[in-house]
């Protein structure tokens, strides 16, 4: 398993990084999420603490971690349960409303 040697995203957020690096990190997150969604999963707990960086450079690899709350989506593209899972402050509106979330809830967390 690859190591996120530079820690999670919290330190990067606090240290006020450049816009270029923000875009690179977001691009890495989105590419990772695309792979997760292609696998038929929804992460449901995306937050800075679950985003790891391989190093501190602008071209650092972004690793999406902590799939403890991840859930497969059904044929309708929605997770099975309606419980609120995730972290308050990062969850999508439909999660607060106890709706069956889709993979779009991860996109809200990215935004």
């Amino acid at each position: 398993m690859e190591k996120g040697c530079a820690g999670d995203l919290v330190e990067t957020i606090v240290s006020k990084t450049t816009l270029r690096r923000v875009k690179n990190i977001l691009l890495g997150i989105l590419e990772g999420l695309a792979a997760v969604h292609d696998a038929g999963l929804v992460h449901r707990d995306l937050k800075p603490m679950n985003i790891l960086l391989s190093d501190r450079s602008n071209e650092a690899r972004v690793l999406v971690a902590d799939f403890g709350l991840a859930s497969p989506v059904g044929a309708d593209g929605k997770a099975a349960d309606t419980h609120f899972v995730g972290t308050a402050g990062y969850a999508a509106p439909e999660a607060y409303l106890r709706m069956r979330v889709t993979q779009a809830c991860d996109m809200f967390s990215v935004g």
Partner: protein
Amino acid sequence: MLTISVIALDLIGGKLSFFAGQDHAECARRATRGIPASEFEGADWDGVDVEFVNLLRSLLHPDPYGRPTAQAAAAALRTMVPRTALPAVIRPLGTATSKLRRKPPPRFVEIEIGSRSPKNSLPVELPVSVSSSPAPAPRRAIRRKAVPALEDVLSPALSGTGQRTTIDLAVSVTASTLADAPVTSLKKTLEPPRVRAIRRKQVPRLEEVAVVPPPSDEPSSADLLVLGKIIALPDTDDSDLDEGSSSSCTSAMTSSSGSGTDATPVLSSGDASSASSSAAQPPQPKAPAPWSRLKIAAYAVFRR
């Protein structure tokens, strides 16, 4: 500042809203209400391009079906990320590929096998062919699996009293064999490829050793092929040996096994180089040399 904490807004705002003390109900209320446009204004957003802001706003759409998919968002963001310079290893692509086309020179490693083994012998796993007639072809030597113990092979050949005996040696060495063999010296050299001949004082029993890589057109488990001759001289002083003489050959070696003291190895080269060997000075007939005193030094060519 930012009232809802999501990753991109946190990154741009430089602040973790999650730790700002917002409770669950407040987060729910603000999330379901939507992100107002005023959240994307302020000093933190100076210099942020409009396309990027629009992408973030689409990601934060209250309606889940109004948000782009991860692939679509990544594709859109990819157009906004400035192209970074290629890594240094890729940047000089033309130079790199031209270097790749050139075949790197073989790496030569000088090894000495067996000189410090308990019996001062080659490891018995090494296939050795001994003949007084023209040596077998290298490929045949590689295929040879029935490997007699070196002692059994050499003892009859060295049974002559006070006679010079030439043994053709064809050894295929694998990496595992090398790992087991007592390698007493390992020295990298940048000598040209082909074969090497060794004649040195420290290895008095060795006349020539030629090392060639196994035939590339034939699959073989051998990492290198050692072709050489063991000249089993009677127990003479090292001063009897000619230090400077050397010879080279290519792929096959034949030798004459003589009983006289003037028996000189005859090397038949392939098509490239001819061999010239100056025989050791005629040793004085003495007691038969015990086989255990044989040493083999070789130039090994490691297959890349």
